[in-house]
Each structure stands twice: as C-alpha cells, then as structure tokens.
C-alpha cells in the first residue's frame, strides 16, 4: 500500500485536487442553479472591479516585499491614513496655513535627511528645504474650494511620503540584520500605532468622501443598467459607476508603477536592490535611499487605494480590513510578482463577490472565503501562481 502511494504520489495528488475541484464545482453549480444569469454576470463584473482596487493594495505590499523583504501588515492602516488625509483636504473648506506648512515642512525634513541628519548643515539643502516647504504649502492652500482636487492631491502626496519615510526610518531601518519575525512584529506594531493615531484624529464615524460625484449634478452617479442584454440574461445587471472609475484609476496607477519599475533609473535601482542588497551597495547604489523611496512609494500606492476604496464604499477605519483580505491575494499571486498582485486581487475580488452572492447574511464573502483561499494556497502551492520558488540552504 505505502509502496503504491509512494510510486503514484504525484498522480494521486493530482487526483485529489481534481476531485476537490469537481466537488467545489458541483457545490457552486448547486448553489447558483436557482439564480438568474444576470445576477451571476453582475457578480462577476463587480468582483472584477473590486479586485482591481485589491490588486492595487496588493501591489503596494509586493513592492515593499520585493525591495526590503518585509511583509507589511500595516498597509491597511496606511490606506486609512492616506484616505483620511485626502478627505481632510477635500472636504474642509478652509485649509489652515499652519497645518499645511507643518505637513510640508515635516515631509521635506524627512525627505532631505534620508541619508543622514547632517545633510541639513549644507546651505544648498537648506535652500531646497525652504523652497520645497513654500511650494508644497502653496499647492495645498492656493485658491478657494474649487481647487480642492489640487489641494487634496498635494496633501495626500505629502502625507503619504511622510508616513512611508517615517515608518521606514523609525521602525524598519533599526531592524536591519534582525530575523524576519522581528520585522513582521514591527509592522504589526506600526499598524496598531497608526490605528490609534487615525482614530484620535478622525474618529470612528464613517466619512463621506464624494470623489466619484457626477460633475453635472454633484451627487452620486446613476448605476449603469445593462438593459440591452435583458433577453439573454433574464434580468438586468446593475454596475456601479464608482467601481468602474476606481477600477480604471487602479489600472492606470498599476500601469504607472510598472513603467516606473521598468523604465526609470530609480526603478532599475529598486529592482537591483531587491535582488541582492549587498551587491547593489557594492556597485554604488544607495540602498538606504532606495529603501526609503520604496516605502514612500508603497505608502503613496496605499493612499491611492485608500481614496479609491473610500470613495467607492465610504471612508472609515474599516477600510483597513481590506488589506487583510488582500493578503490572500498577495500570496495567491506570488510574493515577488507584480502581475501576480493584479491577478490575485481580481481572483479574490471575484471569490468575495460570489461568497456574498451565495450567502449574504453570514459575511461568507468578506470574512470567510478569502481566508479559505489563503489556506488552500498555503497547502497546495505556497509560492503562489507566479512567485519564485524558494530554495533553502543551511
């Protein structure tokens, strides 16, 4: 018997997977049999659209993991921070000059002292500092309420970079050379601190972030109704415009980052650093600066995702749970794969929406299905779909 198992281990494993897949398909067919085609199409489409934002969140986690080998559990709270800063600049009619000045001064300070605090002794850097503070403060406060898009974009950019740089400087940098376990705990600790800070500053109430308002009416878009397919689908599939815009923007951000990674010298340096930090240092790349840029970029990605998610479903501390659902997506796509982040995000989005379709009252979609996928990935293919195989040496 054991001889038989050992001999046909591979075939038996595949047979077990095929059997499980068949059982799952039968179960799904049974669950979905009573539903109209329109609802299934609608679920698929909204899963795809939600998955786009998940992919963007996953991209931020993958970027950090590629460059510094740290899995960022605080990413969800970075999303919240970014979204909340955007909300502050976007909805508050009068932006305080002092607040904007402090934010830009802190950001410029952190950016200029990335290598060493001594760099501020040079006159040239001080001039850059002053100019940067003036320009950013001006961008954040110029004009009236009709300039709110500019204010919000400049404020979120500065806030995200400040968050990313501060997290990297004060928590990740001191841990260089420590075991991975320490870094995991550190990001968890950062998540808790960001949780407390956002709760103090913005409270637990859900905030309305009217990013996706119809410019004509100023209210929310009317959902798209797929009337023309009524005959084929046996009903009307409804798609929310907010999700479509968020998906499109997520794809643009995604494409932007891929271009950044592939075609800019900083992106090249980041990829080199992720391959081997010591080697990168020995060919003259400034690893410290590159790690700082990576964290700032990831925080900026998190902010974009936070704004999109907040605009689509409402902004509150609960957005951080999105990142918890994205962890399965990251592992599914593979920890090192940028394309895998998008694929994983979309798969998790679809799974989540179908879970909600099958059983909406018990939070199957949001609280169970992604984690079941996570367990399956870990047991069947721990490296994910597109991840690198890890080979260990003693």
């Amino acid at each position: 018997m054991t001889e038989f198992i050992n001999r046909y281990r591979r075939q038996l494993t595949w047979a077990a997977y095929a059997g499980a897949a068949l059982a799952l398909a039968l179960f799904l067919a049974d669950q979905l049999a009573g539903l109209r085609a329109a609802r299934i199409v609608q679920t698929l489409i909204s899963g795809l659209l939600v998955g786009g934002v998940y992919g963007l969140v996953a991209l931020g986690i993958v970027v950090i993991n590629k460059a510094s080998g740290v899995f960022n559990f605080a990413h969800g709270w970075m999303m919240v921070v970014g979204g909340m800063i955007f909300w502050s600049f976007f909805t508050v009619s009068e932006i305080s000059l002092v607040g904007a000045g402090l934010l830009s001064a802190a950001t410029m300070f952190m950016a200029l002292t990335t290598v060493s605090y001594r760099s501020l002794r040079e006159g040239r850097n001080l001039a850059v500092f002053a100019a940067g503070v003036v320009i950013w403060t001006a961008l954040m406060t110029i004009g009236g309420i009709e300039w709110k898009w500019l204010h919000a974009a400049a404020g979120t950019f500065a806030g995200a970079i400040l968050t990313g740089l501060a997290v990297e400087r004060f928590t990740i940098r001191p841990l260089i050379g420590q075991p991975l376990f320490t870094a995991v705990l550190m990001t968890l600790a950062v998540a808790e601190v960001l949780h407390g800070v956002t709760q103090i500053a913005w409270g637990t109430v859900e905030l309305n972030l009217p990013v996706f308002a119809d410019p004509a009416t100023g209210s929310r878009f009317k959902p798209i109704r797929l009337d023309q397919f009524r005959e084929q689908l046996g009903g009307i599939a409804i798609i929310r415009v907010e999700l479509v815009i968020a998906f499109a923007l997520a794809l643009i951000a995604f494409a932007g980052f891929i271009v950044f990674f592939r075609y800019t010298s900083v992106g090249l340096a980041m990829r080199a650093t992720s391959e081997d930090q010591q080697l990168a240092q020995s060919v003259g790349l400034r690893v410290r600066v590159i790690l700082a840029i990576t964290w700032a970029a990831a925080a900026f990605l998190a902010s974009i995702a936070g704004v999109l998610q907040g605009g689509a479903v409402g902004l509150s501390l609960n957005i951080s749970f999105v990142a918890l659902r994205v962890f399965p997506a990251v592992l599914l796509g593979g920890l090192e794969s940028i394309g895998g982040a998008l694929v994983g995000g979309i798969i998790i989005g679809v799974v989540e929406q179908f879970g909600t379709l099958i059983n909406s009252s018990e939070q199957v979609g949001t609280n169970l299905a992604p984690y079941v996928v996570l367990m399956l990935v870990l047991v069947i293919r721990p490296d994910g779909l597109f991840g690198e195989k890890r080979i260990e040496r003693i």
Partner: protein
Amino acid sequence: MANLHPAGVFDTTYDEDMSIDRTARDKLWKNLAFAALLLLPLLSVSGPLGLKLVSDQYISLIGRIAIFVIAVQGLNLLVGYTGQISLGHAAFMAIGAYGSAILARDLGFSFWTALPACALLTGLAGLVFGLPSLRVKGFYLAMATLAAQFIIPWLLRYPLEDWTGGTRPLSVPAPMIGPFAPYAEATLSDGEPWTIAAGDPYFVDVISVNLQAGAGVEPSIALRNPAGDLVLAGDINMTVMENPGGQITGFSYIAAKAGEYRVEISAADSAGAWTAAATVSKALSFSTDIAMYYIIVPLSALLMFLARNIIRTRTGRAFVSVRDNDLAAELLGINVFTYKLRAFFLSAVYAGVAGCLLAFERNSLSLDMFQLDVSIEMLAMLIIGGAGYPLGAMFGVTFIRLLQEAVIPFARHSLADLLPQVFPFIDAVNITSAINPILFGGALIVFLVLEPRGLAHRWEVFKVAWKLRPYAY
C-alpha cells in the same frame, strides 16, 4: 536559552545545568513569592479576614494577568521555543472559552470536567491549524494562523450560533464544588410558600425543587429572592428543568446572597394531583473574584512550571533545535513536522485553558474579546517580556497590564484636555479607545528597537549584576 551566570560561576554537572532552582535561596525566594501571592486576597477589602489592606481592584487585576500569563506562555512555547509565528492565538482562546461555556451551560459538565475537555478540544483545533506547518514556515505560517484567526470566529458566530449566541453575549455559570448532601427538606403544598433563610457568597445554598404532576396538571413554580422579586428563568444562577412537553418540572437555584428565599407553587384548578419536594444543600462556589483567584493563580503557576519542565525534556530540546535551524534539526534525526505539531497542540492547550478560565472569571463571553487585536497584543506581551525565556510571559503580561492600568486613566484626562485645544478638529470622545493601541504598539516598537530580548533578559542581567555588586563583572 542558556541562563546567564555571574563571572566565575560555572555549571559543573548536567544536573546543575538543568536545575530549575540553582540554589536553595532561589527556591526559598520563589516559594515565598508564591505564598505571598496566595495570601494577598485574604488581606483584601472584601476578604474574609476584614483587613482591608489591598484593594479588590488589584485582586481581579492579578487574576486577569494570571489568565493571560497562561495564554502567553502557550504562545511562548510555540513562538519563543519552537520559532513558529502564530497570529491566531486569540481564536484558540475563543475555542476554549466558548467550548467550556457550552459544555457547562448546555451539556451538563461542571467547570472541573469542562476545563480539561475544552483544553483537549482546543489542542485538537491547534493541530488542524498547525497542519500547514508541514509545508510552510516563517511568515507563510503567520498567514495560515491569520486565516485561523478569521475562520474560527466566523464558525463560532454563524454556523454555531444556536449554541454560542452569535454576537450576543453568552452568560457562563460560576464554578462550584458540590452540592453536598441536603441539610433541609420540605414537601410543598399549594398556596403555602416555603420560606428558607439561606445564602452566602462562598458557601452558597443550592435550592432545588422537583415537581411531579399528573397528566394535564400544570402547576407553576416560582422563587422569590430576599428582595421579594421573582427570579426569572433566564437568571444566571437558575437552572430550569422542563419535561418534553415544555412544562417546568423543577429548578435549582444557587443562592449567593444571604436572606430569606420563598418558594411558591400554585395550581388553582387541580390541587392534589401533584407532589413537590424541595431540598437545600450547601456548595462551595467560585463566583467571587477572590474565590476565582484561588483557581486561577495556582493553575497559572502550575502551567508555568509545567512549561518550564517541558522545555527541559527531549521534546523541549527538539523544539529549540527546530527554532534554531529546522533543516539542521531534521539532519539530526528530529521529525520536524511532528514536533511542530506538538508545539501547536501544547500552545493551543494553554490557550484553551486560558480561554476557559476567562469565560468563568468574566461570567460573560462575547466574540469581541477574541479579535485579531488580542492576538497581536499577546504577541506584543511575549516580545516585551522576552520570547524564549521561561518568565517572559509573566513579565510581558504584567508590564503591559500595569502600563494600561497606570497610564490610560492618567493619559485619558490629560490628553482629552490638551489635544482638542491644540488641534481643534480632534474630538475628545475618540481618545479613550485609541490610547490602548498606541500604547502597546508604541511599547512594542520601543522594545523591538532597544531591547529585542525583552524584560526577562534584562532581569537576568540585573540578577547577575546584583550578585556581583559592587564589581561590574
């Protein structure tokens, strides 16, 4: 992790190296500290001696600390000694808590049988979620346990809602020894209430009534407490028995408050067609904080001692070798997978015991008590205390809990006054619940950067320095 010794002190035999107490004086101090801990409730305000030296608040605080010491020590076995990260420890505690509560409420177990049963149950759940450790490790395993942290509360909340009550709080009866043989009996008759003087917080009186009625007769039984109020069937101390037809055939009530209790039976239309016998017996109840203290603290000390001894066995040494390098451990002939599973099992058993104690100490359970935050908090406690040190769990839990007790009330008021003045957009309401995550997140960051080996290491260094004073080495 090897113990630190002062310069010039060497272990010359294996027994010496393995000893728990190196000198007789160490042992004396340890036993004295334990005895002092056991004496503490007797000196408290509501203690039986009436000494009023220690506030009751501290007794319940020590009780809660001791419960979390058990849970964090379980985490220490898994994280500190075996090197497997777990983000799902709170979920295992939830299994222990809800398991024991359901066993005691619905399945007729007493606390004493529910405790080992739910420890075993939690251990088995730990085995299931330890299975991925066959294939993945390090950070991937953290992900697998994160899945446990979501799947287990989901299971408790929805599929098992009939038993756990879903999101509603679940009340848990207090542990009890007894009831012993009845000391008073009475046969009840219609319209004549039976009055009995009973009740004591420690030696409670169990009043039980057994009704036997003929077919079609539906007498109603009622109990009035010393205040004269009717005790409702949903009361936490009341257990109601029903026949298959859904009629009440009796009850037993735990009288903890001293006074006169009255049992009344009325069946207006059909007198004589029924008989009712009532008995009162004494039992030892653990409903008060002080009484629970004498369950929790010795059990906590016992489990700490047990964990320390596990580490000294072959199993413990295998744990440490898996942590230090699992490939090398495998080459040495250690079956890494079974030892990882053993670590998961032990860790979950500890979590189960802690969850069970938490349920019976609080007398009320809700799923909010076992969220991801609690798992992270326990990891933070372990790191701050010192992962891989026998006393790490104790130091960490005590430090965090004392920090919370000392800082939060102080910080709440001063911050609520200060922050809204500086930043006008801040609402003082939000500050209260936000201090806690900032506090232990900040403490964890500080310890990871400045003292990654934790307070237990600092304590060892301090002990060495004390023994060598006034010399530096």
